[in-house]
């Protein structure tokens, strides 16, 4: 295939951002941004259509010289795991533009530029085959995200943006040390594939494992380095929350999958019980915190901590079902929590309150809205038939195989999720109509539907027919297992 598809995917939003700078008028900016994200999404679909699910090898690989003196190249490529998240990023990118259509009414151009630059960098992270390129994109993401929260956020935006920046930067610096150490220990190369093939002594693996853990745990986020998340989410505009929950949190888990597991297999195995315990802690602690929230956004934010706990639980179960489930849950969480933040944003635009106590009886006033809220609430609590149930079943099945007791703790988290999600839905949608201000509320319009419906389709598609999604990641997951457990020893 002659076409550099991944470069096109990564650079389309970047070029689009440059194009936006030339435009005048908010309308033109919005439509162009939408066009760019849709084009990017179309490219991603083309990529998936040409994706070979039978191999774990990197596909659509491109290599260009960059800094030969240091062995740095501009290399892109995707395996099954990254392909899924490239698609998710492009999907949520389109949703973000639609979600910001009316919500962002000042400095529209600057906002859309930030959004598109952000998308380009996120895609860069998932496509990078060069550790240096990965790190550059990983770090550079902070800037547009900082701006999105800090400029267009709520009242406490500066504090939240700063806290987000500080936490992630602290994690990243440790990561940088790890990257440099890896460079020297791994044969002075930044090539991720070469680094993966290199066998490191256990002691080195251990040090690197914890260096990476700190960086990735902040992103996931795992308890106890999660406290930036609720602040960032509450203050961020809707699109910011969708990106944060939908894609940024996945970066941490993706880091485990791309670096920790394949490059540091012995350390990953050795510390897996610790990771399972931290995951179980996040599941239950995040769930308890979510249970105590009155702010809709905070509730969804804390639920993310709990749900991402399921992801890391699945990953560090280090068996087939666990990994499949963990990765599928990453995708599911992106879709479902992205949609929940979108819905919270939509209702906030109308009522200017996020306090659950201010709502009640919304079903009578906005039946379409509450139907979607019900669907995504049920998806988030992993009702059978929805996407998360498939993921949760796989994660728990793998988790039980790895550690019965911690699997049982995770089930407790599933129970909590039913409690806070159904409680939230009931207080918002059912019961008597509460405040008089709610009575003139408008149901979802066509543009809002255009953002929600695709996500709703994925909820049911993955829930009832997850095979296409699992077959994309299948070969890569099996290869990953071989890398961790060594060839010959099955999962």
């Amino acid at each position, binding site marked *: 295939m002659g076409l550099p598809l991944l470069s096109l995917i990564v650079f389309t939003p970047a070029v689009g951002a440059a194009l936006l700078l030339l435009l005048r008028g908010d309308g033109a900016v919005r439509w162009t941004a939408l066009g760019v994200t849709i084009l990017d999404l179309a490219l991603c679909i083309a990529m998936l259509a040409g994706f070979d699910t039978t191999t774990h090898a990197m596909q659509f690989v491109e290599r260009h010289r960059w800094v030969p003196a240091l062995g740095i190249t501009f290399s892109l490529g995707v395996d099954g795991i990254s392909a899924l998240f490239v698609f998710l990023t492009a999907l949520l990118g389109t949703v973000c533009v639609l979600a910001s259509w009316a919500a962002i009414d000042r400095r529209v151009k600057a906002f859309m530029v930030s959004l598109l630059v952000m998308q380009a960098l996120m895609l860069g992270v998932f496509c990078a085959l060069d550790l240096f390129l990965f790190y550059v994109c990983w770090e550079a993401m902070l800037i547009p995200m900082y701006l999105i929260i800090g400029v267009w956020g709520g009242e406490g935006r500066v504090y939240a943006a700063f806290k987000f920046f500080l936490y992630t930067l602290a994690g990243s610096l440790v990561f940088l040390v790890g990257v440099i150490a890896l460079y020297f220990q791994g044969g002075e190369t930044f090539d991720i594939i070469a680094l993966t093939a290199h066998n490191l002594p256990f002691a080195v693996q251990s040090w690197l494992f914890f260096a990476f853990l700190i960086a990735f745990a902040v992103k996931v986020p795992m308890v106890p380095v999660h406290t930036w998340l609720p602040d960032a989410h509450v203050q961020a505009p809707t699109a910011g929350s969708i990106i944060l929950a939908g894609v940024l949190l996945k970066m941490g888990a993706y880091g485990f999958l791309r670096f920790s597991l394949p490059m540091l297999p012995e350390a990953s195995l050795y510390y897996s019980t610790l990771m399972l315990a931290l995951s179980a802690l996040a599941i239950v602690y995040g769930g308890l915190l979510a249970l105590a929230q009155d702010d809709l956004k905070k509730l969804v934010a804390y639920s993310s901590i709990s749900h991402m706990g399921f992801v890391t639980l699945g990953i560090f179960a280090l068996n087939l079902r666990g990994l499949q489930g963990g990765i599928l849950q990453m995708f599911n969480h992106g879709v479902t929590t992205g949609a929940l933040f979108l819905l919270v944003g939509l209702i906030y635009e109308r009522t200017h309150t996020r306090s659950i106590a201010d709502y009640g009886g919304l079903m009578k006033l906005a039946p379409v809205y509450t139907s979607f809220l019900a669907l995504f609430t049920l998806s988030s609590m992993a009702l059978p038939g929805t996407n998360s149930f498939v993921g949760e*079943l796989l994660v728990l099945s793998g988790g039980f195989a790895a550690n019965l007791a911690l699997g049982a703790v995770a*089930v407790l988290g*599933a129970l909590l999720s039913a409690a806070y999600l*159904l409680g939230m839905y009931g207080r918002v949608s059912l019961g008597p109509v509460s405040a008089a201000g709610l009575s003139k509320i408008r149901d979802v319009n066509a543009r809002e539907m255009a953002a929600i419906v695709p996500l709703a389709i994925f909820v049911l598609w993955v829930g009832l027919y997850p*095979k296409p999604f699992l077959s994309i990641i299948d070969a890569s997951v099996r290869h990953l297992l071989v890398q961790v457990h060594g060839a010959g020893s099955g999962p």
Partner: protein
Amino acid sequence: MDPAISIRPLLAIAVPGLAALAILFLNRRERLRDLVSPLAAVILFAIVASMAPTVLAGGSVELRLFEILPGIALAFRADALGMVFATVSSLLWILAAIYSIGYMRHLNEHAQTRFFACFAASIAAAVGGAFSANLFTLVIFYEALSLVTYPLVYHHEDDEAWRGARRYLVYLMGASKSALLAAIALTYQLAGSLDFVAGGLLAKAEAAPMLLTVVYFCYLFGFAKAAVMPMHAWLPAAMVAPTPVSALLHAVAVVKMGVFCVLRVVFDVFGVGLVAKLGLGIATAYLVSFTILMASVYALTRDDLKARLAYSTVSQLSYIVLGAVLLSPVAMVGGIVHIAAHAFSKITLFFCAGSIFCASGKRNISDMAGIGRRLPWTMGAFFVASLSMIGIPPTAGFVSKWYLVQGSADAGQMAFLLVLLVSSVLNAAYFLPVSYTAFFEAGTQESLSKVREIPLVAAPLVATAILSVLMGIFPGYFLTLADGVVR
């Protein structure tokens, strides 16, 4: 016998499902809307009945849609156990649909479109559960049933309704998101599949007996719809729903879904052999015996007729489970047949309670003195159904109790024979006084002078009472199916 491949199991789910959509669509055209339910019910029953000959002959009707995960497919199968449940649900839906129209119109209830739509959707979920070929498909419909019945429980939208509905959802969802989820994940882990296998999916699994025991009890309590104590408290709370809901859903479809799931677990997930080997049969039998007796005692103390019926249901559901876990073939037949026997009789009793409420506005038994003379059809049917609940020939309840008693003797478990006898006495003690009050106690005549039968309400309950007797005289259909399950 090779299974027959047919789309009919899916069609049976689609008909009530589409009926629900049609009802929503016909929101403004009430007469047309009200026609949808009875019509769909008749079609559904015809579809179910069309599969009966195959199943009665020992075969099954299957439809496998596609694989969801390795070892898990979206698949349907109408087998003997499923047919018992589906026959009862679809047959009684015809009568309940007519009854509902009479009831809702007479009381001029609000939100009738939502009511009828959710009602039809509940039947779709119940039939879907009956025809599920594996645990994954089953829990999809199991949970769907919880959700679509929820608006029926909060129907009145007053404080009491919201409280009851909340308890309903907390119990059902809480149990399924904890115990049931763990049980399914562990089963998938141990067996690599979630298919129902004759003789038991887990029969060959290599697992510690302790772990299997935990999984078993996770199922028993996770399927909270079976209302085994202490997971029973949602059922009396659900009585805030309009009476047609209590009748068809909370005496037939929803609760039978619960025991149906438990029977599936005993027969097709663990298998009789494994349950016996682990010694779980007797343990469960003691557990449900407690439920049988305790719920009967509760029922004795309730003056609210629907509450008394609800506790009676809790008690009777455990008969079904008891029959299964005694693990003797005769007892199992008794348990399975009791699904149908209890359904016909208990729906009659609830229909009667609704009829009394419609005609007189009375809920408490103590207020019903002399009402039998004003409502002879209703109270006559109530008496017949009471006899069936107690187990007096020639009613349906006699058939199942006969097999249960004989089965406990077969199993050499005299303790449970005693439980059955004591509970029969308790049944008589809480049902017969109702008839006595209604017929023989003198009421204040003026308050009853305007009370008269409502034809659209009374006709279905007479029909179900007749069914209760007919099943007692001609139990062949259900006995053959039950034999098919046990064989």
